[in-house]
């Protein structure tokens, strides 16, 4: 067997638990459950609602988002022979959004704006490193401001997307993926850290954005526009600060 074949086999063997248990599969299911609970309360996690959402879901979009989640570089996930770089993960999540038929054509441009800013914010930290394929280990200590700006841009983008009505199952999985990518530097080597950070932040963001939507956003239509502009500003600032922090 050639080394390439062996490597491909290793890849597949490592992929299965990632895809169906952690960070895809069961872990993803727990995350989506939490997000739905935060947005819609107990009614949103009823069996019938789940079933309806899955039956109506856009499978290619959901699958691409799930694979992005499964390939995330989280502590405790089975090691891949060749780590997937940040570009590929960001591209998968973007592809998932483009495929999502849950997003109506008329709304696609408005949904694409926060999504592009999120992608920019996720990729911006790479500019601070020696290589543009993965974050360096000391990224957080070298560019804490850039990290904070990038995370803020992602959180704001997720809120904007929720306000714009992007509430499909695939959208929730994508949101988890973006969040997990943005928070990557803070996990450290502790296994539960990623779960605590991603799930905790997701619950707070979706709960807050869901409540704000009903109370404020409907009364002040311009809020979404301001939030979007702020998000883009934060993303560009994250890129700029990352470039300045580069050695």
């Amino acid at each position, binding site marked *: *067997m*050639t*080394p*390439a*074949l*062996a*490597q*491909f*086999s*290793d*890849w*597949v*063997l490592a*992929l*299965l638990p*990632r*895809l*169906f248990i952690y960070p*895809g599969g069961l872990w993803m299911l727990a995350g989506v459950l939490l997000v739905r609970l935060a947005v819609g309360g107990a009614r949103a996690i009823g069996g019938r609602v789940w*079933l309806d959402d*899955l*039956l109506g*879901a856009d*499978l*290619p979009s*959901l*699958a*691409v988002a*799930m*694979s992005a989640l*499964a*390939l995330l570089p989280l502590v405790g996930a089975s090691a*891949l*022979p*060749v780590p*997937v*770089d940040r*570009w*590929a993960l*960001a*591209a*998968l999540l973007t*592809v998932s959004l*483009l*495929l999502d*038929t849950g997003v109506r054509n008329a709304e696609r441009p408005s949904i694409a704006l926060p999504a592009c800013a999120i992608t920019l914010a996720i990729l911006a930290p*790479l*500019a*601070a490193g020696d*290589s*543009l*394929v993965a974050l360096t280990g000391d990224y957080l200590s070298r560019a804490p401001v850039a990290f904070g700006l990038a995370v803020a841009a992602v959180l704001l983008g997720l809120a904007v997307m929720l306000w714009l009505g992007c509430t499909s199952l695939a959208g929730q999985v994508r949101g988890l993926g973006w969040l997990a990518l943005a928070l990557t530097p803070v996990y450290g080597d502790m296994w539960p850290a990623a779960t605590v950070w991603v799930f905790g932040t997701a619950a707070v963001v979706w709960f807050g954005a869901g409540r704000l939507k009903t109370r404020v956003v409907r009364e002040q239509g311009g809020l979404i526009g301001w939030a979007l502009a702020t998000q883009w500003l934060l993303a560009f600032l994250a890129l700029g600060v990352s*470039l300045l922090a*580069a*050695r």
Partner: protein
Amino acid sequence: MKPGTLGLVGCNLAVAGLQLLFFLPVVDGGRTLDVALWAGRPPLFRVDRLSLLFGVAWAVALALATLAAQANGKRWAWMWLVTLGLLGAAYAREPVLFYVGWEVAGVGVWLSAPPSAWATRARSRVKMAALVHGPGLALLAAIALGRVGAFVPPEGGAAQVWTLAATLLMGLAAGGRALAPALYAWMGLGAHQETPQDRWLMLAVFASTGPFLLAKALVEARWDEWGVWALTLAGTAMLLGVAAAAWRGTNSLLPLYLAAMALIGLGLAPASPMAAMGAILLVGLGAFLPLVSLLDGNEPYLRWARAATVAASVPGVWLVVQGAVEARYIVTAVVILPALMLAAYVGANRLRGGAGVSKAVLFAALLALAAIAAYPQAAVEWFARPAVGAMAGGVGASSRLVSEWGLGLVSTGPSESLTAALPATGVALAAFLAWVALYWLRGLLTAITNRAEKRLPPGSQ
């Protein structure tokens, strides 16, 4: 449930459980166990990871087929013969024993089919016989060639022709079995795969035995270049057949079955490399590897040609030759895999309208883009080279943002390792497997919901 059905289902599940209980420790760490009927005789059976995996899978599949059989009046009691035959084939070390197991399972299918389905029309009987036993005859011929070759070893060119003929017969047998569901529909015997029992039987006895045969044979045999070429061609032909069947919508689940078999084959690679290669060659998803082996066969020539043209200072020719050597990575990740996914997507959804087709094309195109996006890994290899590293040493971080990304794409060609193609292929595979899993989950939930709704009294919804 009838007591007989319950017994047969329980028996199959027990067979699956016992295999796991007794054989799992045996095959731990890739070990094998040869079993002879009595001491001093050649071993007839072999327990390894490949046989255990298929033995368990077939027992479970047949339990499900039996469970489904009672609903549509099939002669389910004959299913025990299918189980017996498949278990014999799974653990056979001796090729003739393998053939016997294969044929016994086929006979079990004949006997468990309702008489009205085929006995009334002589033409249908002939077609079914050709489908069920035709591949078996090809296998028997391949075994016979092997036996004759062992007694009277051919030499020179005759040896190559001999090997090629045996390989093609083996490929024909495996292909005939693996493609049987599509062939059934093509030959107008679609009625034989309408019920859930039929589908489970198709999966257990036909679609999976083909790849298994080749995998099993390849574990034992050492194939020369001709054999690999023949297998590659067989795999490619089968791939085209699967795509055509999927496009016609004759059996929408076929690509998914084959994708599952590819996964099994890939998972087995550490235990039996050639087994994985064989399984992969015969399933659609594995087109990644046929292409590699096909082009690998040409590589010595291409490298020689490159060296010669470099020595003769012909830069234009060098570029073309270099491109031919390295183009396989791009072709595999960007053309082959998305094309396969398109075929599977179209097949599984039975797309008819223009909107559906354009969505499928979009799906394939975007997956290709995702594959390209995975290529920055190649940049790591590129920068790892001393000469390139020195060249890039003076480049600032800000300009690297553009230059490294660009080089990542461009250097896919010059990188001389398959590692560069791995992330692209692997990412696309992950997306495809996730989609298959979700597709099955949705189908399962739909079936459960429909069943629950049927049980409700009228007017209660």
